């Protein structure tokens, strides 16, 4: 007999959030008699069953119903479907079990079930019919519940307690305030010990089948945004205030450390196309995944660093190739990269760094020199002493960052430490994406790294659509578009560029303006003290920005923030939007007196 009582009622009282939403996978994972769920627990659980990997919109209707009845219902469904081969019909579990809290409004709605997988259903059925139900996949279920608990609580850092009982002996494992993974380790260890007694080979089988699809659900964590309300129904979780608190913390750290940013960057992206890039631990292989991420990175990079330039380098066959020279056009880089995706040979970090060093030595002194290396290999095949090369890069003030795809390498770590870059190793594709995009926003400018300078630039006007003129860059007659150099009046096709007649750097002012919010950050808004907000005369009824009512349900004063400059009140959503996307205070912008600053 195997029972799991998750977050037992006693423990639930001490939990930060008393209601625990549960997500269970029903298809092919439920023990026959349901005893593992703890027959009499009146747990505030919501159950969102997944059928064949798909969440069906079936919500466990009431917290007062015991879980075992649900489990029994599931078994009934399965039996029925086996007998008739039909879509399972719901038979009320309440009629079967006497200990279930039976009340007419607790009817479980009929979920739209997809027919269960053939082999799986049959296999289970056999076990059920032999009466061997108690031992069915208990370990698998337990692990599944743990993984669900984990995916739910891992981010929230909630305290949970889990009690298991095996063969009637209850083992209560209660851990408060420790990381879930820690607790998990202890529990799975214990579990394995116990399970050795009734080991079954199907167990493993089941385990393997679980991982692939379940991980995708664990990744999406769609259930995390659900919460149970008073009537036991699921609704979107109200973590607005939580989000807001997190955002405030972010804002505070961001503004307290107001640093100069290196806005003009010269960055070489070095892509490892050695044999190691053909590994298929990333799907379809590392090379394709890296190329995809580099493409996204290049676009994001030019969006955030309009005056910066990128060049692409590849490492293969022990040498470094220059794929594209430094340039400001995302499309040309992406085109060049996609045309050259072949891997072979070894990677040489030293050759790559040497090439970058020689190329970056030519750039103007005001630019920030950077290298971003996407390294798949676990070794480097160098012609000389790489330490010398690293020192050379250090003295040339080239900031080297490495993102590893396989495992941490000392030489990469050393390189990043020496040159002030960052080193990280990605776990999977989403993580890699995150790591790559971290390099898109301008890094803090290290004063000695680049000399401040004034650069002369022109802001060309865009010509009217439909005008025909000859451009100076391609020497072709073109219809429409185009920009006119303010100094020599030559026509160019794209911005940013340099005028090929007079050499003036041409940018469009919106390009520059994209980074101005770094220069003029708006002050963080202040929380409105509860004493003030309880006075209806002091706080306006509506948010100044979006007109949302600032009153909480029941005409009570809700949460709001106020701009220290213009003293207008805003709702929490506007607060986040204003600081993270808009970068303007609508209140300050709406009053003339604040114009003067």
């Amino acid at each position: 007999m195997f029972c799991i009582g998750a977050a037992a009622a006693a423990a639930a009282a001490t939990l930060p959030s008393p209601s625990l939403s549960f997500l269970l996978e029903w298809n092919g994972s439920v023990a026959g008699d349901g005893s593992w769920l703890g027959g009499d627990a009146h747990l505030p659980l919501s159950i969102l069953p997944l059928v064949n990997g798909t969440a069906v919109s079936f919500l466990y209707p009431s917290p007062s119903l015991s879980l075992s009845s649900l489990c029994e219902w599931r078994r009934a469904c399965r039996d029925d479907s086996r007998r008739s081969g039909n879509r399972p019909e719901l038979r009320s579990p309440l009629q079967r079990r006497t200990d279930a809290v039976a009340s007419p409004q607790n009817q479980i709605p009929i979920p739209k079930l997809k027919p269960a997988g053939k082999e799986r259903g049959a296999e289970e059925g056999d076990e059920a019919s032999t009466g061997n139900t108690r031992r069915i996949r208990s370990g698998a279920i337990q692990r599944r519940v743990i993984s669900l608990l984990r995916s739910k609580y891992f981010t929230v850092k909630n305290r949970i307690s889990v009690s298991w009982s095996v063969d009637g002996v209850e083992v209560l494992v209660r851990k408060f305030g420790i990381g879930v993974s820690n607790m998990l380790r202890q529990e799975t260890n214990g579990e394995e010990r116990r399970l050795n007694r009734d080991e079954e080979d199907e167990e493993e089988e089941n385990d393997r089948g679980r991982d692939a699809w379940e991980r995708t659900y664990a990744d999406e964590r769609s259930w995390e945004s659900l919460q149970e309300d008073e009537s036991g129904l699921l609704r979107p979780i109200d973590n607005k205030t939580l989000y807001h608190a997190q955002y405030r913390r972010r804002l505070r750290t961001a503004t307290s450390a107001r640093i100069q940013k290196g806005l003009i960057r010269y960055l070489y992206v070095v892509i490892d196309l050695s044999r190691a890039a053909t590994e298929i631990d990333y799907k379809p292989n590392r090379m394709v995944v890296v190329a995809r991420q580099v493409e996204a990175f290049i676009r994001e990079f030019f969006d955030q660093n309009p005056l910066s330039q990128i060049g692409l380098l590849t490492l293969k066959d022990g040498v470094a190739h220059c794929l594209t020279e430094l340039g400001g056009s995302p499309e040309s880089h992406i085109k060049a990269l996609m045309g050259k995706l072949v891997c072979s040979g070894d990677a040489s970090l030293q050759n790559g760094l040497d090439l970058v060093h020689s190329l970056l030595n030519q750039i103007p002194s005001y630019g920030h020199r950077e290298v971003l290396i996407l390294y798949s290999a676990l070794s480097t095949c160098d012609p000389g002493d790489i330490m010398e090369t690293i020192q050379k890069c250090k003295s040339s003030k080239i900031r080297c960052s490495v993102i590893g795809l396989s495992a941490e390498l000392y030489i990469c770590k050393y390189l990043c430490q020496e040159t002030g870059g960052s080193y990280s190793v990605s776990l999977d594709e989403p993580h890699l994406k995150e790591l790559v995009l971290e390099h898109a926003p301008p890094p803090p400018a290290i004063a000695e790294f680049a000399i401040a300078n004034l650069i002369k630039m022109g802001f060309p006007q865009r010509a009217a659509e439909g005008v025909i003129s000859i451009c100076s860059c391609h020497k072709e007659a073109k219809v429409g578009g185009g920009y006119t150099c303010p100094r020599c009046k030559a026509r160019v096709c794209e911005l940013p560029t340099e005028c090929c007649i007079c050499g003036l750097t041409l940018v469009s002012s919106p390009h520059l303006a994209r980074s101005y919010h770094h220069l003029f950050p708006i002050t963080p808004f202040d929380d409105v003290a509860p004493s003030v907000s309880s006075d209806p005369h002091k706080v306006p009824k509506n948010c100044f920005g979006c007109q949302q009512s600032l009153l909480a349900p029941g005409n009570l004063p809700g949460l709001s923030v106020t701009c220290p400059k213009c003293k207008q009140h805003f709702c929490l959503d506007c607060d986040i939007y204003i600081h993270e996307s808009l970068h303007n205070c609508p209140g300050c912008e709406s009053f003339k007196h604040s114009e003067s600053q």
Partner: protein
Amino acid sequence: MTPAASKLYTDDVSLLMVLIDTNPFFWNSIKSTLSFSKFISNVLAFLNSILLLNQLNQVVLIATGYNSCDYIFDSSASQNQNQRAESLLQKLEEFVEKDESLCREDSVDAPGFSLLSGSLSMALCYIQKVFRSGPLHPRPRILCLHGSPDGPGQYVAIMNAIFSAQRSMVPVDSCILGAQHSAFLQQASYITGGVYLKPQLLDGLFQYLSTVFATDLHSRSFLQLPKPVGVDFRASCFCHKNTIDMGYICSVCLSIFCKHQKKCSTCGSVFGQSQAQDSSTPDRKRKTSVDK
């Protein structure tokens, strides 16, 4: 919004944020061609036609004043369908009076610009609220009925608003009522993919509004809408707020100056060398695209 409407939002349901310029100095200057009252009656007819085009359409009117900005009308909040115009006009009158009372003596002599950055920011906040309301919402757009000259001091704020609109894919349409083109709104419409129009004859304003700006975003692709007659991408310098077409950029913070400076007034960087590296040597090879 009533739940009874069951949110049958198709792609042709619009949320139209109309920003009207109520700068008294501007309206005084074009009294002879288009009076404010005539303008308002045109706008009222336009708003009514938008609401009649689709039952679920929503219209919000924000006044861009000389000293302040405020919400004037919200079709989703007004209960009384029959007295829409009355409540709108009353609110507008209150706003204009309040706006005037905020006026300071010394600022009157300037030609005067209105606070477009403020009303744009408010409109964007409102649109975010609509986005938050759920997966089904009307498709928002902003229409600026603007006449006052650009306020150079608002440059950064307006650009911030434009980029935020671009990110949330909200087009900013502009209809210029004044004599001069507005570089800010040209850029706003160009960047966000909206329509920029400067009507030739203000007498037929309603015609322009209803033919160009009344169509929903989905139907726009089937129409031949006015193409931009060039976009003014000039910037304004940080030191004098002049509009310039050539200038100096601080390499650390990208501030724009019209003259050579010793020190950046924005970020405090001291500029070491002379402008030898201003990348204006005509004879260098284009391909290297780097200095030295």
